[in-house]
């Protein structure tokens, strides 16, 4: 197969785009909607932990079957903090928020 200039340009573009995917720590994360920000609101440690764990669990509920099979997001709850009121309330709030977010994203029309 002969590589034309156009093919080389397309290849270069693809390589550039793909190398910008840096995974889930700050970069592009294909396992969640792009607009969903997983950074918890600034607050005490228990609050931030609860928020992150709740959101992770909420996303896992409404993922498609492939993502569920791959286990990209799973139920998460810190057993040591479960009895902490602040942790648990943040967990509940973000669980509800993220699960609703995922549900509407999967069936949304623009």
């Amino acid at each position, binding site marked *: 197969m002969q590589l034309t200039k156009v093919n080389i340009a397309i290849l270069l573009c693809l390589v550039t785009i793909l190398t910008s995917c840096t995974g889930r720590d700050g970069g592009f994360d294909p396992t969640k*909607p792009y*607009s*969903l*920000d997983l950074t*918890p*609101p*600034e*607050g*005490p440690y228990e*609050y*931030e932990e609860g928020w992150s764990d709740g959101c992770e669990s909420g996303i896992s509920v409404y993922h498609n079957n492939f993502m569920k099979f791959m286990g990209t997001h799973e139920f998460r709850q810190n057993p040591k903090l479960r009895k902490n*009121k*602040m942790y648990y*309330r*943040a967990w509940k*709030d*973000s669980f*509800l*928020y993220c699960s*609703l*977010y995922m549900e*509407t*994203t999967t069936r*949304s*029309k*623009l």
Partner: protein
Amino acid sequence: MRYIAIILVVVLMSSCRAGPPWKTWMYEGPPPGTLEKIPDRKIKDVYGMGNPSLKNLGGTKYQEILNSSMRELYRDGWIDGCESGVSATTNLWYKFQYKFKQDAYKAQNRVYYKGWKDAFDYCQRYIYQYERRYFM
């Protein structure tokens, strides 16, 4: 031909909506009449959730909350809760404009949290139905 064009323009214009309904009031707090029923006095307990460890939280936030009245806290909670509720259930386009909002420190206050929860539940269901039905 000209009449058809005029009719088409009229039909198209009559279907125009001035914008999403939540934009008009969500930033102003709960619907009129709701706030007036909440006492306009300073709160007694900043983190009145029955948890003594919360007393050490916040620093300047503690003072800020202490200086707020119950009415202000409820309104703040409402505004944040409504934005979060809208963000959770609106369509993909508006999801870029709204996000989860909750003040981690104020959320430990009973009045703020009640406003947040009330508005989250109300707004997310309101938008869910609005998106589902479109016209009727």
